Every structure is written in structure tokens, then in C-alpha cells.
């Protein structure tokens, strides 16, 4: 492990990321007894704060811990939980586990892409939705499953998807 770099790690690197959040992340890291083996926990915290892990946040973590940026990115890219793109207000997860898959999850996700006009891991133009495909979420009895944030829609049918999404659009006054 290398030493911390002697740069000011507290100045935010881009304007659009709020300094307070960097400060909060820094306090969080400073209060840890040891940062050894804590990279995942720190990235978790960072994602909660910023909503996603932009480049500058990853570099901030790397410099603060005195580890290479590539190492941080290696971890970020390994876990599908971490995202480097901003998320929509709602995250729609479509389970692609085996049980869901045999019950037509591939058609479900295609339909979702059609309705939202995006691919997986993208955000809709209005900033409302992010679509992700996930591995088995352990509710195979309800397959196929779509989740909107923490709300689970079990045994969904293709025809129902539009209504589900419209509910959220209405809620946000976008319909």
C-alpha cells in the first residue's frame, strides 16, 4: 500500500458534486478505526450519499485511502450493486435468475425497455427511472419478479407493466 497523496483531498474536484457530501464522506472515513479492508463499506456509504459513484468520488476515495484508483474501480466494476451512472428517482430491477428466466423474464425486460425507451443500466430522459437486471433475489415462488425500489411485483405479466410504470409517472405528475 502506498502512502496518502499530499494533495488536498477535501476540495471537490467538480462543481456539480456538492462539497458537503465530500465532507461527510471524509468524516465517515476519518472516524473509522481502520480503513484496512473497509473499501466496500466506504463505497457503500459513498453511493448512499451521492446516489451513484462518479469518477471523482472514486478518485476521492482512492486518494483518501492512499490506494490506486484502478483498485477502487476494480471493486466498483465487480459488484453490480455499485453504479457509476446517476440513478433515476426509481430503480426498476428485473430479476433474471433462473426461475424468473424460465417464466419469461427475458420478455418482461424487453417490454420494460420498450416502455421506458432505455437499455439496462440507463436512466430515462425525465430522470425518473433506472432499469437494471439483477441476479436471483430469492423470491422464486413469485417469479417472474419486477421490483420498483423495494416494492415487489410478483408474477407480473407483460400487459401489466405499462400500468405499473404509469402509477409512478402519475405520482410525479409526469403523466
Amino acid at each position: 500500500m502506498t502512502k496518502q497523496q499530499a494533495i488536498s483531498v477535501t476540495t471537490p474536484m467538480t462543481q456539480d458534486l456538492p462539497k458537503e457530501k465530500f465532507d461527510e464522506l471524509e468524516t465517515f472515513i476519518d472516524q473509522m478505526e481502520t480503513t484496512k479492508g473497509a473499501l466496500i463499506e466506504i463505497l457503500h456509504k459513498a453511493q448512499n450519499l451521492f446516489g451513484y459513484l462518479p469518477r471523482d468520488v472514486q478518485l476521492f476515495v482512492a486518494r483518501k485511502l492512499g490506494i490506486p484508483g484502478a483498485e477502487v474501480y476494480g471493486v466498483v466494476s465487480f459488484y453490480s450493486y455499485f453504479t457509476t451512472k446517476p440513478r433515476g428517482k426509481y430503480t426498476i430491477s428485473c430479476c433474471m435468475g433462473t426461475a424468473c428466466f424460465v417464466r419469461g423474464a427475458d420478455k418482461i425486460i424487453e417490454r420494460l425497455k420498450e416502455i421506458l425507451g432505455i437499455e439496462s443500466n440507463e436512466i430515462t430522459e425525465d430522470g425518473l427511472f433506472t432499469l437494471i437486471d439483477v441476479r436471483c433475489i430469492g423470491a422464486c415462488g413469485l417469479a417472474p419478479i419486477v421490483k420498483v425500489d423495494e416494492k415487489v411485483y410478483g408474477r407480473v405479466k407483460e400487459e401489466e407493466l405499462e400500468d405499473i410504470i404509469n402509477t409512478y409517472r402519475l405520482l410525479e405528475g409526469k403523466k
Partner: protein
Amino acid sequence: MVETKKMIKIIINDQELSVPEGITILEAAHQVGVKIPTLCHLDLHDLKMVNQTASCRVCMVEAPGRNSLVPACVTKVSEGMEVNTHTTRAITARRMAVELLLSNHPNECFTCPKNLQCELQALAAELGVREIRWEGERMDYPKDLTSDAIVKDANKCIYCRRCETACNIVQTCGILSGIGRGFDVFVGPFANIPMVESSCTYCGQCVAVCPTAALTEVNHTAKVWEALNDPDKHVIVQTAPAIRVAIGELFDMEPGTIVTGKLVTSLKRMGFDAVFDTDFGADLTIMEEASELIYRIKNNKTLPILTSCCPAWVKFIEHQFPELLEIPSTCKSPHIMFGTIVKTFYAKKHGLDPDNIVVVSIMPCIAKKAEAKRPELTKDAHNNVDIVVTTRELGAMIKEAGIDFDKLPDSEYDKPLGETTGASVIFGTTGGVIEAAIRTTYEWLTGEELVDVEFTQLRGMEGVREAVVNIGGKELKIGIAHGLGNARILLEGIREGTSHYDAIEIMACPGGCVGGGGQPYHHGNEEIVKKRQEAIYQEDRNKKIRKSHENAEVLELYRQYLGEPYGKLAHELLHTHYEERERI
């Protein structure tokens, strides 16, 4: 004191043997002439580059009593262990491991830059793979051609992680990391940004150990042919000190064979208008660097002085220790100095338009490709050095030209600018630059003749070395590091103020340029690098003149053209400056 290890008994393929405790099955098998194939494994013990990721599963052997096959490269022997290396089961498992790697590997050996040098290819041949039973999904990542030095072709990455070991552990640059997971995993920099945007030093140590063509140098041979075929161009070539002791390997000669004369002949036959030796530039470097050192000592300026002839090392300090940019010598590297002299003094003397001169450098080095493109070194709209090709690339060109290298007669470098000294030859190995500088500094400071020019205390392969040299009653404390991880240790000491040196030599590559990223592949055999080093010191002993400031042609150059060493014109032409860079 030699530590005596406990000896234990094991059986390999029915042969009983006694081996020291703690070694691996692979090492034990080696002792009884059993060859277990390996791929990810790499052990350059003395250079401290050991890759033990055990990711490829090519070295699987059977150890009865254990449930399954075990990887020989990481499994330690134990008392009474019985190992069978070539049972049907082991052979099948190994072949399967290779077939799986091949199943999603691009099928393009014919046109691959590593053709006949690729370890995966060699392994497939060795294991008798004749068909690939699976068709895996191939990766389809674009090639990274952004840098002037390194090509990254992620589709050929077999994820052995040797490059990570080289870059992160040995060089402590931290550029490369595994990206993604599963079958799609490959190695790349932070956020998979283009190499050119990363803090890569272009030392090329990752290239030196990559078994496939996932990491290779940017090939510039076509540019050289183009220049040679252009009747309007005056094409001159210079060869670095470390080429003459390594290029013979590409023509099946023993490592460490000195082939200076054949090298010169081959270049002349290829059609270069003049063949020069970078050693001349190295002598020039010493004139400037020793003057700078003495200037700094006499005027109480910043010490230590750090040698600056390794561009990878320069880029390393720019990214990693931007607060220390005051300490490196401002001297350009030897081949860039030489290029400058060619485009100025030589051009004038021969009535040539510098724009029509093409300077080609043959270097053991990948970093020098990028160095030659640095904006501050491309003065007056024409480059100081136009094209850099590695030892490996030159070897390929000699073959393309149908030159039978080992049958060539010897010839001499062209003159003027052709005379060189023993001091400049040793630039090719760790410890050599500082030894050359001390030979000159000693005589200049004391005014006495230095009789024994060999400073053996500065030599060797230890990663970090220190020595005190007594110069006329004044003690100079010298530090030497090779490998950037070792350089980091020295620099941290300086930054923290815990160590004090007067002069430091740093070379990015383990062993120095003899182990450079552009040298013939050593395929994990570090003896090769050591033999090249021995040959360098032999070449020094072969020279009549062994001190840079006794190079008559260099002195003549100062008299006719440059004026005083470290003077005004020398400053303008032979010195440069450095830049703070971001660490990514």
C-alpha cells in the same frame, strides 16, 4: 548466516527425493527434471517479481490422498507427499484448462504481434491441443491505441494478472486492475479510461511479463521503413547501450553475447545513412550531469540530484511525487541529447536541413517512445528524435530484411559522434549511470587521476543500494534504486526528510535497461537479465577510455559548438524541465 531449512522426503512420479520444507511442488519437480507446464505463474525471485495468482489451472497435478487435483505452482510440499504429475487425469485437466482459455480467445495467431512469442500459443502446442471443443463467446473490446507506447488489446487477456503484479506490486504504479468479473473480466486502468489518460509511466514491465498480446508495444517499424525508402530523407540511427548485449538472443545466441559489431553491420545493410551510438549521448549526459552536481554542491543548492535518463522514472515522479520536481537533474536523456545534436550541430556541419533528417533510436525501452513525443522535447517544430523502436522491433526488421545476423562481419560506428567510453556503456545497467557520473565528478572535484575506475560498491541487483564514496576528503552519499517500487522507498525517505543523499540513480526497470520493457522476452528467466548485466560490465572493461570526460569527440563538440559544459548553449539544447501531473 545461511538459514538451514528442514529437509523433507517426498515422491514425485515414483522418484523419492529430499527437498527443503516450504517449497512448492513445481520447484520440487524442477529438481528431478520433471517439467510441469505453467501459464500464470511467474517467478523472478531476485527481481522481486513473483506472480502467484494460481488463476490459470494449467499446472494441475495429482496428489493422492487429496480429493482433487492441486495447482503445483502454489501447493507446498509436505512430508511423505506423493505427487503424480503426468497421469491421464492431470493431463486431461490441463488440456481442458488451456482449451477453455482458447475457446474465447481471438483466433488470429498469424497476424498477432506475439506470434511465436506467445506463451498461450506455446502451451497449446506443448500440450498437444489439436481441436477446441467449445466455442465460447468472444469479448469484443476496442483496442486501446491511445498512447504512443503501449497497445492494450483486452480481447487477448487471459486474466493471469501478471501485469497487475508488475504494475501494482513491483512498480507501485497502480495503473492496472481487473475490471468486471466472470468470463468478461480483463485488465485495465481506472474507469477503463484510455491508457494515455492514466498515470502510466510506460515502463513496459507489464508488457515484459504479459504472456499473450493483451499488452504490447506500439509498433513503429513501418515508419522506419518508410523513412529509409524516402530518397529525400537523411536517416540516422542510434543504438542504446543495452541493445548490444541482448539483441543476439533474438537470433538464438547465448544471453549476454556482445554483438556490437554485428549490430552496426546490420543497420548499415538496412540502409541507414549513418549509424551512431547513444553512448555518445550518454557521455554528453555525464558531462552535463556531473557539472550540475558540482554546481549544486558548490552553491549549496538542492541535493540530492536524481539522474534523469529514464523517462518512465521521470513520468513516475511527475505523477506520484509532484512536490519533489526540484530534485531531478534537468538533463535530457542520452538519446534525446543525441537527437538534438544531430538536428543542430551535425545538420549544420553536413549542410542538411534538420527537417529532412530522421533520427531513429533503437531502445530497450517502451517509455522512450512516449518520451520522444513530449511537447517540450519536440522543439522548433521538428522532433529531437523522430522514431523509437525497441530491441524486439529491430530484431523483427533485421529478419524482414533477410539479414543473417549471426553470420555478419563486425563494423564500427560512424564518426564523428561515434567515439564512446566504458562509462557510457554501463548506462545500460542499474548502478551504471551513477558510477559513470562519479568517475567524472571525482576527477573534476579533486583534480587527481582516478586509477581504479570500478566502483563495485555501486553494483549488484539489490533493489535499493547505498554507498559512500570518498572524493578528496568529501564524502558523497549515493543511493541507487531500480524498479519503481524501490524508487518510491527512496523518494518517501526524501520527502519525509528521514534520509539524506547527495546523488541518486533511479531506473524504472528491474535490473535497469538490461531488463527494459522493450528487450527480448525473458519468459520468466531472470538469469537472462543478469547475463546481460555481466556483459555490460565486460564491454566497459573492453574499452580503452572509461571516463566520459576523456571522450575526445565529446570534448571536440564542446570546443567547436557547445562551449562550456552546463553553459548557456548546453542549457538551451541539452536540458529540459518537468511538469506536475495528476495521479489517477
